[in-house]
C-alpha cells in the first residue's frame, strides 16, 4: 500500500490527475462556469477578439471559451455513457459465454468477430447518416461498436476464473449460473475491467470527436469538442486558434487518462507483488 501511495506523488500523476479533475469539474458544473451563453452572438466578427472573450470568437461570432466549456459536458458525458453501455453489454455477454461455454460461447464470439471486423468509423458514418445525429444515437452506436472489444477482454478474464476450483466448487454444489457469474466470477475480474473502462472512455472521446469533426456530431447550436474543431477549422488560415483549443482539450483528456491508467495499474501490480 505504501508503495502505491508513494507512486501517487509523482509529478506526472499529479499533472494528469489535475487535468482530468479540471475537466470533470467543468462538465459537472455545467452552465455555472460559462462567461457567456454559448449560443449567443457576442460579436459581429468571426474569429475576432471581443470584450470578455479570452479565446476570441468563433466562425459565427460566439464566445469560443464558453462553447469549449459547454462542449466538455457533452463530450465527456457521451463518452462515459457510451463506455458504460459497452461494458454493460460486453461484460454480460462475456460472462454468459464463459460460464456456458459450448455453442453460446461460439456464437457470441463469432458475432463479436463480425462486429470487430467492420471499421468503427464506417459503422458510425452509416448509422448517423441513416438515423440522424441525436445524442441517443451517438451514445448507443459508440457503446455498441466498443462492446466487442470489451467482450473479448472480459471473456478472456472470465475464462481464467471459470477454471479455478472455487468456481468448480460452486458448480459442484449446484449453484445457478447467475450466482456463479455475479458472485463468484465478476468480483474477481473487476479491477482489470475498471482499467479497461477508463481506456474505453478515452477511446470513446476520440471516436465521438472524430464523428464531430466529420460533421456528424451533435446538432447545432450545441457542439461537442469534435464539432467545434470542425466548425472553426476555416479560421486556421486567418490565424485564429479557435479550432486549436478544442483539439487541445481532446488531447489533454485522452493523454492524461491513458497515462494515469497505465501508471496506476502498474503501481497496483507492483503493490500486489509484495
Amino acid at each position, binding site marked *: 500500500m505504501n508503495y502505491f501511495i508513494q507512486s501517487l506523488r509523482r509529478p506526472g500523476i499529479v499533472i494528469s490527475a489535475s487535468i482530468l479533475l479540471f475537466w470533470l469539474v467543468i462538465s459537472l458544473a455545467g452552465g455555472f462556469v460559462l462567461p457567456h451563453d454559448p449560443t449567443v452572438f457576442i460579436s459581429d466578427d468571426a474569429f475576432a477578439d471581443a470584450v470578455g472573450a479570452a479565446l476570441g470568437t468563433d466562425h459565427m461570432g460566439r464566445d469560443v471559451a464558453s462553447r469549449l466549456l459547454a462542449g466538455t459536458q457533452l463530450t465527456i458525458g457521451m463518452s462515459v455513457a457510451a463506455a458504460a453501455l459497452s461494458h454493460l453489454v460486453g461484460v454480460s455477454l462475456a460472462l454468459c459465454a464463459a460460464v456456458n461455454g459450448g455453442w453460446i460461447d461460439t456464437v457470441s464470439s463469432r458475432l463479436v468477430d463480425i462486429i470487430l471486423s467492420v471499421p468503427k468509423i464506417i459503422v458510425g458514418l452509416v448509422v448517423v447518416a441513416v438515423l440522424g445525429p441525436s445524442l441517443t444515437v451517438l451514445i448507443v452506436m459508440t457503446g455498441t461498436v466498443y462492446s466487442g472489444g470489451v467482450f473479448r477482454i472480459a471473456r478472456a478474464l472470465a475464462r481464467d476464473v471459470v477454471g479455478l476450483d472455487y468456481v468448480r466448487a460452486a*458448480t459442484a454444489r449446484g449453484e445457478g449460473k447467475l450466482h456463479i457469474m455475479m458472485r463468484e466470477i465478476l468480483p474477481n475480474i473487476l479491477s482489470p475491467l475498471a482499467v479497461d473502462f477508463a481506456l474505453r472512455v478515452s477511446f470513446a472521446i476520440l471516436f465521438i470527436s472524430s464523428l464531430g469533426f466529420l460533421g456528424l456530431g451533435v446538432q447545432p447550436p450545441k457542439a461537442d469538442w469534435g464539432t467545434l474543431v470542425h466548425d472553426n477549422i476555416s479560421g486556421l488560415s486567418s490565424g485564429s486558434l479557435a479550432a486549436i483549443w478544442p483539439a487541445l482539450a481532446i488531447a489533454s483528456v485522452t493523454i492524461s487518462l491513458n497515462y494515469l491508467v497505465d501508471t496506476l495499474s502498474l503501481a497496483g501490480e507492483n503493490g500486489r507483488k509484495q
Partner: protein
Amino acid sequence: MKQLVLSIRNLTIRSEGGGHAIVDNISLDVAKGEVVALIGESGSGKSTIGLSCLGLFRPGLTYVGGDIELEGSNLLGLPPRELQSLRGRRVAYVAQSAAASFNPAIKLNSQVIEPSIAHGTRSASEALDRAISLYATVRLPQPNQIGSRYPHEVSGGQLQRFMLAMGMLDAPALLVLDEPTSALDVTTQVEVLMAMKSAVSAQGTSALFISHDLPVVAQMADRVVVLRNGRIVESGPTNELLHSPKEAYTRELIAAFRKIDQKRLDISQEQDRKTVLSVQDLSAGYGGRTRAGKPSVLAVENASFNLARGEVLAVVGESGSGKTSLAQAIAGLLPRSVGSVRLHDVELSASLGGRTKDQLRRVQMVFQMADTALNPKHTIARTLERVLEHFFRLPAAQREKRIEQLLALVQLPPEIAARYPRQLSGGQKQRVNLARALAAEPDVLICDEVTSALDTIVSVAVLDLIRELKAKLGLAVLFVSHDLAAISGIADQTIVMRRGKIVEAGETAVILDRPKHPYTQLLVSSVPELRANWLQEAAPRNEALAKRIAAGV
C-alpha cells in the same frame, strides 16, 4: 581447511518499503565439492538465498546488507556486466519446473549449449560434444540423438536432467538446485536424484540444494542448514543433524517426516461396514466420442470399488494415472461415459445437472490447491455461509453459530471468519476448504491431493484432522494422493492406479508392506526414507522393477 567456493556473510534481504526481513542475517559456507542443503518450509527464505547467489533479487525485495563471495569475489559489488558473465559460467541455476524453463519451439541441444556460446567459452561444436558427454553423465538415454528433440518430446524427468546438463556445461564452481525434484513423480524422482548425485560427484561441483523434503535432502547433502522465517535454526553434517538434532524446530521437522514414514494403521474396528458409495465399471475421459460411445482419451477405465461409512479409501497413482479424473467423475464434475456410481444404493446421474440437490450435498469435494479453492473476494464467513444458505436455507442468526462450530471442527479460531483467504496461511486455507465441504454435512468426502501443496508439519496436522473428522462424523472418505507416505497414516483401504486402470487394491497396510503388482512395488520402493544411502539401494531396485513392468509381468 578446504577451499571455499561460496561464502555468505550476514546477508539480509527485506521486502520493499520497510517490510519484514525475508532473509535475516544469514551466514553460510560451501566448500569445494561439497553439497549443502537449505531446508525449510515455504516462507523460510531458502529460494531467496539461492537466487541471491546469482546476484538476483525478486522484484519487491531489497538487499539490505551482507556479502556473498563466490570464489573470492564479492558478487554484490560487481557491475551488472561482470555479474552477467559469471551467471551460467561460474554459478548455474536449476529451477523447479523444467517444463516452464525451456522454450518449446527450440530444440534441446541448442538451448543447452546457448549459455556456453553466449559467454564465448566454447565453440558450438565443442559445446555440443561436452553436452553429449554430460547427457551420458546424467543418464539420459541415447545421448547422441536425444538432444535433437524438442522439449515436449521428452518426459518431465528427462527435461529436468537436460536442465542439469545445461547448468553443468561450463563446469561452474557452484550449482544452485532449487527444489529440482519437487514437481516430479516419486519414481522419476529417484532416477533424477541418482543422476544428480553421480553427476555432481563426477564433476566435483559444489552445490546448494534447496528443498523442503528432508528424506530427499538426506540422500543428497553433506551438510544441512535448517531455515525458518529467514533465520538459520541449526546447521551441521547431514547424519549428525538427522540423528541428534539440537533445536526443537529441527526435531519437530524430523518427527513430522518420521511420523509419515512409520505410521501404520490397524484397520479400525469401529467402522460399521455399511457401503455408502459403490462404483462399478466406471470409465471417463476427455475429447470427442468414438463410435463405441467412449471418449477418445480415456482417463479412467473400468474402475470398480466400494466405500463404507467410517472408511478412508486411498486412490494412489502418479501424474496421468487417472486418479483425479476418477474423483471428478464421482463428484460429477467430469461426466462418466459408462459405468455406475451408486450412493446409498441409488444411482447418481453422470452429470451434475441430473443430480438432486440432496445428492449434491451428500458428496463433497475438497480441492488440491487451497489458494484457488477459495474465492479471494469472499470472507471466510461468506464462503461458509453460502453453503449453509444453499443447502439448508438457515436463517442468519443460526448461520453465524454454525460457522463458529464449523471453524472449531477444523480447529480454527472464530475470528478467522471475518478474514479474506489472502490473510490466511496455506494450512489454514486448507482447513477452511474442509470446513466448507463439512458445512454441507456430506456422507462422502472426496479429498483430492489435499496435502500436496502444504508444508510437512502442516500436512501431518491436516491428515490427523481428516482422520479425526472421519471417526467423529462417520464420513466415508475418498483420499486421492500421489504420496504413499501420506496415505499410510490415514487410509484403511487403498487402490493403486496406473494409466487409468486399477492395478492393485486391498488393505493399506498389506499394500504398503507386501505389494504384489510390480508397479505398486515400484511406488513403495520409491518413497524416500529418512536415512543416508537409501537412494543407492532404491535406484538399482527400481531399475529392476521398471524392467519387469515394461516386460508386462
